[in-house]
């Protein structure tokens, strides 16, 4: 006991004698705190993210075809959607999965991306006008309709004027991008008085001219990439109970329909100026940012001032006048130019932001269509099918949805939901018997249908080469199937009917899906269940593969692992440095103390005592700074657990499974940290300690020369 006390004292005093120990101790302290706080944060992030992934789209397990060329990646691969082979008949798969005792629910899925022809403002207005014109041609002579047509005409004319002005401005600043003469000519024609006088005589010709020659010139004409999960929507909502409808309603059971993710709806489809104002408001209110200090906010102000065009396009002359009048009054100015007025409104600073925000939503917003797609609209989605050509499907947008806690998480928000039938149409999978069927049908397909397809191709710039009738027909096996069932299936009519058709569960499930989410009764038995499913699939000779949610999440599942590796690498490097420093310091100390050690040995100290003497020194060092680090790190984590780490960027919502992450320090982390420190100190001192034991007592007798 007393010997130990003495050793302790020697070690402690030796430690105090050297300043290097303070540096070493500091490094041990820093490394341990990093390990503890980082480890706790990552562990919590891991479980938060698993909650996010499992609760949003993955479920506990995912099954897909084992014949797939690539691994399933629910959140998309690095470049494109993963090349996953289709499961021909989901019924069979479902039956197999439901026999596994631990399986609670199975949700069929298919993930794909498509281009959504939302159309630009001119497109939308022209479509509106075309619909009204058609109604008039069908015999509706009501004065309201006539008034509406005239108003729309004025709106289109107004937009052409705006377009003309924009292009002239553009030509003035950029000589390189000179306007193509035929485009300029088209605009000139559309501006002319004669064109509008002649509109009512041949409205369809005029409309076609505007749709084909003017609309594509508007710069907000673009196709939006929409990622969607085709699924059995009823089952999906039951399985993922964090899902909730925000706007509109759920898709009626068994019907075709589309649900936008609220996040996607807000970020992609909302009028950009409004979106930016929302973002600014959030940054100012939640993150306490100020326009004066935040470059980000200043950029948004600048963009808002410059990009008022899509608002101006939306306003017909009457609405423009309303807006000008109200803004003049509110802003106290005589400015007559609506663009300049808007820019004035949007030129916000920290003092007037809230007031201007309210003003925008009170005065400007009611005049606008705030979203490019409204709830209740029918959406035309174009997708490249498996066979490579473009297919389009019309689905009704029933509403928007979100996952509770993940409202702002882009990762959870990029998936829009669609019914399985529409998904299959877009996927365009050709089973052998269907291909046979189509062959037979080629001869029968009607001309009216092809016209419709052609028109769409022209309108949305669909790239099917040649757009021949056969190509289009082949792309829509599912549709053709149904059009045969629907009697007198002429194109336009057929599509309208499909929107309201109710499908039976057998129809929905008895076809192609790409993958399926499996919810488990007992998630802790995930791996056993996974193996069981794989074994059963093998026995049943189904080409089926079950993977965990982590694997299914693709790069995202590996992201936490990646961050963890980075942390571990940092800590590892830090501790290697510590190791080297301790090793050097102790080696030097040993060398300096050779005579002292030799003396102790001569006096009668055994080798083991010398070993302990050196080891104890490092152990003490590690103990003192390690305990301090555990206390500090534990305190830090405890504090963080109390206040939560805010998801200061929206991207983090997904990783935090909510607006804040509450890290928890597990016993495992503390144990791991202690094991690491002990190992590092032991390994680093082993060599100096062994060297010290080899010091011969003879050196005590040597004299300094």
């Amino acid at each position, binding site marked *: 006991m*007393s*010997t130990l006390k*003495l050793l302790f*004292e*020697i070690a402690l*005093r*030796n430690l105090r*004698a050297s300043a290097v120990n303070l540096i070493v101790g500091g490094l041990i302290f820093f490394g341990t705190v990093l390990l503890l706080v980082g480890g706790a944060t990552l562990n919590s992030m891991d479980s938060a993210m698993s909650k996010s992934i499992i609760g949003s789209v993955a479920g506990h397990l995912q099954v897909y075809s084992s014949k797939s060329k690539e691994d399933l990646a629910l959140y998309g691969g690095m470049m494109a959607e993963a090349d996953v082979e289709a499961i021909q008949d989901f019924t069979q798969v479902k039956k197999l999965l439901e026999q596994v005792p631990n399986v609670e629910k199975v949700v069929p899925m298919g993930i794909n991306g498509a281009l959504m022809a939302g159309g630009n403002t001119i497109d939308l207005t022209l479509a509106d006008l075309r619909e009204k014109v058609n109604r008039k041609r069908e015999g509706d002579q009501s004065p309201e309709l006539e008034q509406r047509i005239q108003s729309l005409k004025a709106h289109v004319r107004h937009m052409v004027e705006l377009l003309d002005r924009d292009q002239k401005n553009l030509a003035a600043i950029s000589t390189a991008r000179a306007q193509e003469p035929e485009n300029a000519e088209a605009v000139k024609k559309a501006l002319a008085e004669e064109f509008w006088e002649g509109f009512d005589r041949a409205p369809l010709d005029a409309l076609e001219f505007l749709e084909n020659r003017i609309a594509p010139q508007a710069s907000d004409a673009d196709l939006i990439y929409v990622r969607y999960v085709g699924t059995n929507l009823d089952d999906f909502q039951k399985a993922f109970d964090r899902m909730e409808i925000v706007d509109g309603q759920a898709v009626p059971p068994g019907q075709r329909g589309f649900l936008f993710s609220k996040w996607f709806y807000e970020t992609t489809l909302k009028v950009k100026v409004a979106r930016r104002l929302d973002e600014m408001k959030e940054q100012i209110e939640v993150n306490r940012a100020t326009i004066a200090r935040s470059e980000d906010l200043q950029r948004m102000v600048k963009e808002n001032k410059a990009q008022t065009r899509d608002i101006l396009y939306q306003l017909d002359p009457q609405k423009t006048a309303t807006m000008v009048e109200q803004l003049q009054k509110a802003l106290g100015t005589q400015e007559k130019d609506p663009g300049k007025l808007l820019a004035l409104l949007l030129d916000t600073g920290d003092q007037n932001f809230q007031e201007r925000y309210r003003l925008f939503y009170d005065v400007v917003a009611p005049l606008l269509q705030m979203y490019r797609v409204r709830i209740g609209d029918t959406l035309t989605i174009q997708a490249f099918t498996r066979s490579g050509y473009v297919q389009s499907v019309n689905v009704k947008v029933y509403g928007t949805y979100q996952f509770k806690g993940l409202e702002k998480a882009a990762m959870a928000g990029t998936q829009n939901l669609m019914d399985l039938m529409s998904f299959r149409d877009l996927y365009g999978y050709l089973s052998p018997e269907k291909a046979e069927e189509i062959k037979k049908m080629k001869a029968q397909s009607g001309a009216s249908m092809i016209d419709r397809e052609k028109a769409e191709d022209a309108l949305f710039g669909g790239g099917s080469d040649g757009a021949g009738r056969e190509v289009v027909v082949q792309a829509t096996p599912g549709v053709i199937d149904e059009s045969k069932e629907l009697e007198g299936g002429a194109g336009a009519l057929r599509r309208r009917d499909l929107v309201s058709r109710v499908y039976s569960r057998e129809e929905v499930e008895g076809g192609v899906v790409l993958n399926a989410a499996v919810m488990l009764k007992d998630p802790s038995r995930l791996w056993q269940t996974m193996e069981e499913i794989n074994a059963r699939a093998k026995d049943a000779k189904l080409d089926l593969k079950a993977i965990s949610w982590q694997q299914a999440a693709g790069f995202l599942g590996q992201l936490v692992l990646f961050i963890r590796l980075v942390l571990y690498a940092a800590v590892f490097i830090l501790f290697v440095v510590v190791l080297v420093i301790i090793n050097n310091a102790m080696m030097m100390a040993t060398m300096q103390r050779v*005579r*002292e050690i030799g*003396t*102790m*040995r*001569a*006096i*009668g*100290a*055994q*080798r083991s*005592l010398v070993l302990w003497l050196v080891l104890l020194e490092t152990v003490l060092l590690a103990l003192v700074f390690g305990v301090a680090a555990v206390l500090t790190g534990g305190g830090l984590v405890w504090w963080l657990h109390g206040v939560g780490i805010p998801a200061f960027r929206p991207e983090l919502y997904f990783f935090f499974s909510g607006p804040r992450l509450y890290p928890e320090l597990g016993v495992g982390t503390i144990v791991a940290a202690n094991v690491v420190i002990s190992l590092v100190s032991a390994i680093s001192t082993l060599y100096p300690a062994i060297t010290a034991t080899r010091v*011969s*007592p*003879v050196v*005590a*007798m040597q*004299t*300094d020369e």
Partner: protein
Amino acid sequence: MASIVSIVDVVKEYQLGKVTVPALRGVSLEVGAGEFIAVAGPSGSGKTTLLNLIGCVDVATAGTVRVDGQDTRLLSERALTLLRLNTIGFIFQSFNLVSVLSVAQNVEFPLLLQKRHAAKERRDRVMALLEQVGLHTHARHRPNELSGGQRQRVAVARALVTRPKLVLADEPTANLDSQTGATIIDLMKEMNQKEGTTFVFSTHDAKVMSHANAVVKLADGVIVGREDLGPGAAA
């Protein structure tokens, strides 16, 4: 007179690279219990080597070294250490105190290594010895707070605290001025006479030699003469 050290035909060679350097070339020596012997000779004559062999910190290349009746060649490293701990006390030319420990702790150190003394006994022995060497007032001082002579007195106390049969001192006065050196020798002599502890010390200082009751003269690794100075040889 019983021999505490018995050396017969001892050869010690050092390997310096490929060259073998002989340090002792056939030395025989008997040291009786209670003797106060000086080993004298010029530098490189083998004085320190001889003391190393007697002190069991080194082993002979050939010949036998018996300390307290035990053949050191037959002992394990562990047993040699125990022999040093329990039978031999050391006084070094450069004092060799543990710098981070206090005077009292330095003296107590060998007692702690022996692990058989209660705290009170250790304290009593340490304080008694410090009083004998005149440093009881410096018990809490650190070695670097002491003069050379004081340090060597602490070393003497440390060498004697286990009540060894034999104390080896390698040039104990070489780093001290002659007056201080003399007091150290006097101290050693006093212990020799009071406790009957055997002292073997090396020196090339004639004054120091004069205190011994026998002087063994070494030159080129062999004993060239042994001079018994008579009285006080045995207590």
